[in-house]
């Protein structure tokens, strides 16, 4: 019998990024007892890496902006597969959520008349992103952290949740261990909020931190909740590809905005070769015209490097696959060439792109004013996740809520930049509020010790196999290779079938994983415990992507390269059958109410 400590709560929040902290603050404010469990130290969650800003139609910079425009922009970006209710609530409530951060001490950049400054971003019609230079995520998480620690919540830092504890179909708490000592902990709870972020570590090249192993997705799935839209994984076209240490780190779109061009190993600007018909009229015919656009000529059309993220990412991918890539498997992004056109060019580049200049100088020994950068697509964001009710964020399991990247619906088939930070605030708050209400309305659920014991037994099995078992790091690397190669940016039926085979084999190996040493801060054990979650989400991504026989938003199928009117009517659900098999189904997209339909028509 495994021993464990018990910490009961009314509301247990798993994850301490923007969504988790916002949920915990809201729940604590309503007077219930709140616990927060996070894998890292407080304030280190992936939210910290967000740069661009938080989207909210405050109309501080352009008074034409309002929630209707933001709603329509979000739906267009998501190719109308979004949960319309979430898109509506998000657009309506984001401004108040941003202003609330200011009341809690956040210091956003200012307009001349002293209001919160807002900047332009892809897909947003008006300047809408409240920001702090290029470190908006840090400002947000620190504000929530510093406010949260005085709101009465308990924080259990550096703990991993292994499973949700269930009571006759209702959630009854969570079970896991503290990473420091390896002691088991049971957190009985009347309601649980998942705020665990995304799944980017399932791919080899990712802008995501190590925590992004799909824990919340997998916990919910194993407990019987439905996952939605798992095929939609956003790849950003330009991440660093070299050195190895920084592979995946974002290279801002601003480089291309300032006149940076993409070239293959033959020195060719390949983006001119493939301009989608839909965009032909808006795209420059010549390099010269594209250059004039970047320098602010309103009569010129944009260079093809500034086409949509998904398209640019696919073109880069094609060049690399065709053997025309850079030495480290990317393509060249060249801003240094602009020195030919601009007096004092090197200084100009440093002034316009200070953080990129330092990022490459410090991490890659590359002076971007002299040499081209090597860039390639990087896994960036998970649109898919736990299916939730738009108002309450409750999943299909009573008492189990989800908010932020782990929840699905707001972003549909593709997310607009800036909409994730606002997502965390709006739906973090809602999840906290309704989880607290659920906890007040329902008594404590019963914890079944057998479930706890079985989870504990499974967790320590790797030690029994010892170092002779499979190496957890190796399995993780192999999974990342498979997902990157076979379920990445361009997808094909036979490759994805191959991926399913690989995932099944990796699952068999993961069942034999062995660990050396003891349970104290044992990174090998931690990695072993993440494997099952990563395998589950990888399978869900692959199966959903196989079923959706079309290209839409973030999903591109080389065998079905066009959007299909038929598939516009469906979302895809993944759930666990009684037998333990993964079941994938189509689910009709919920019809929009007439007034929202009208907004979309007006904004077309």
């Amino acid at each position: 019998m495994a021993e464990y400590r018990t910490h009961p709560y009314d509301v247990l929040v798993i994850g301490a990024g923007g969504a988790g902290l916002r949920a915990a603050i809201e729940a604590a404010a309503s007077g219930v007892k709140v616990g927060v469990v996070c894998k890292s130290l407080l304030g280190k969650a992936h939210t910290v890496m967000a740069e661009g800003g938080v989207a909210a139609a405050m109309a501080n910079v352009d008074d034409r902006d309002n929630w209707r425009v933001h709603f329509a922009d979000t739906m267009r970006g998501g190719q109308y597969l979004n949960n319309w209710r979430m898109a509506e609530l998000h657009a309506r409530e984001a401004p108040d959520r941003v202003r609330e951060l200011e009341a809690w001490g956040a210091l956003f950049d200012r307009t001349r008349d002293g209001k919160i400054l807002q900047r332009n971003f892809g897909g947003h019609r008006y300047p809408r992103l409240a920001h702090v230079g290029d470190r908006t995520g840090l400002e947000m998480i620190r504000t929530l952290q510093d406010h949260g620690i005085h709101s009465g919540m308990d924080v259990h830092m550096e703990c991993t949740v292994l499973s949700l504890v269930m009571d006759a179909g209702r959630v009854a708490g969570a079970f896991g261990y503290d990473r420091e000592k390896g002691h088991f902990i049971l957190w009985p709870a009347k309601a649980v909020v998942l705020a665990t972020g995304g799944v980017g570590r399932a791919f080899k090249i990712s802008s995501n931190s190590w925590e992004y192993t799909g824990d919340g997705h997998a916990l919910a799935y194993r407990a019987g909740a439905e996952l939605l839209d798992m095929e939609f994984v956003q790849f950003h076209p330009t991440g660093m590809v070299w050195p190895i240490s920084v592979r995946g780190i974002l290279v801002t779109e601003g480089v291309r905005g300032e006149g940076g061009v993409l070239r293959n190993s033959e020195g060719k600007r390949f983006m001119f070769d493939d301009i989608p018909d839909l965009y032909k009229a808006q795209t420059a015919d010549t390099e010269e015209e594209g250059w004039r656009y970047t320098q602010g000529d309103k009569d010129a059309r944009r260079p093809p490097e500034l086409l949509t993220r998904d398209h640019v990412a696919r073109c880069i991918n094609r060049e690399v696959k065709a053997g025309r890539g850079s030495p480290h498997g990317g393509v060249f992004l060249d801003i240094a060439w602009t020195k030919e056109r601009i007096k004092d060019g090197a200084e100009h580049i440093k002034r316009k792109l200070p953080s990129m200049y330092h990022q490459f100088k410090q991490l890659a020994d590359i002076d971007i004013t002299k040499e081209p950068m090597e860039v390639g697509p990087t896994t960036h964001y998970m649109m898919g996740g736990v299916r939730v009710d738009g108002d309450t964020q409750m999943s299909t399991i009573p008492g189990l809520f989800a908010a932020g990247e782990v929840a699905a619906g707001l972003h549909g088939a593709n997310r607009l930049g800036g909409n994730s930070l606002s997502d965390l605030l709006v739906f973090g708050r809602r999840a906290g509020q309704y989880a607290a209400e659920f906890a007040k309305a329902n008594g404590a659920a019963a914890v079944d010790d057998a479930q706890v014991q079985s989870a504990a037994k499974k967790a320590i099995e790797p030690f029994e196999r010892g170092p002779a078992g499979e190496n957890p790091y190796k399995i993780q690397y192999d999974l990342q290779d498979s997902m990157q190669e076979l379920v990445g940016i361009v997808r094909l039926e036979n490759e994805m079938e191959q991926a399913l085979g690989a995932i099944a084999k990796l699952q068999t190996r993961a069942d034999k994983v062995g660990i050396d040493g003891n349970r104290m801060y044992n990174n090998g054990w931690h990695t072993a415990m993440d494997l099952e979650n990563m395998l589950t989400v990888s399978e869900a991504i692959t199966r959903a992507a196989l079923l959706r026989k079309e290209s839409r938003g973030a999903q591109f199928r080389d065998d079905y390269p066009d959007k299909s009117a038929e598939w516009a009517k469906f979302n895809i659900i993944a759930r666990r059958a009684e037998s333990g098999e993964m079941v994938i189904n189509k689910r009709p997209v919920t019809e929009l109410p007439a007034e929202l339909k009208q907004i979309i028509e007006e904004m077309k």
Partner: protein
Amino acid sequence: MATQALFRIWRGDASGGKFQDYKTEVDEGMVVLDAVHRIQAEQAPDLAVRWNCKAGKCGSCSAEVNGMPKLMCMTRLNQLNLNMPVIIEPMHAFPSIRDLVTDVSWNYRVKKTIKPFKPRSPDAPDGTWRMQQKDVDRVQEFRKCIECFLCQDVCHVLREHHKHDEFIGPRFFVYAAALEMHPLDTEDRVADLKDKYSIGYCNITTCCRQVCPENITITENAIIPLKERVVDKFFDPLKHLFNIL
């Protein structure tokens, strides 16, 4: 391009430990954290290291590399002499948990004792405030802090004299400065800085500022102005006289 290098890594826990040597391949462009990960994956799967974003933004992988407090994810191997062993140790100012991981929970307890942000009433009827960018700039510098605690590690008041019960360290002087200089804040923390947090112990050697990976001018922009506020409030002879009268 690949060469072999020797890494001398401290392994142990609160009860003690020793350096252990690991030889591993190093490739062009690697940082110290990459080497640690490679050793972990190939030779020492239970080697404890704390890390997270691996992009210099979260401040988790603080350690001492060849005696210098560093973020392992931002320390490139080609800046080190690989003809000598690369020595990697946990931070010294905090208790050991295991290997390269230290117990930094003291920092979280300290922060909770500092009086939180208390804004003035909103400036506009809609509940919002007006602030000028130039007034925000100086606090934004402090808010760049990623809480890596390298400044705490290098501060002799904590590292050598172990005054953790009386002194809050550079990180929390920066935090206090961000609150005190926040254009909207109305709280007063000056008495606490003098009595509870012993700002007087800092003798402005600038060690903290020199190791800050975010290049925050800790000593000059945060600590010295706070010291001045303390002096103004408690040690100004004219004010003292005025108070007596």
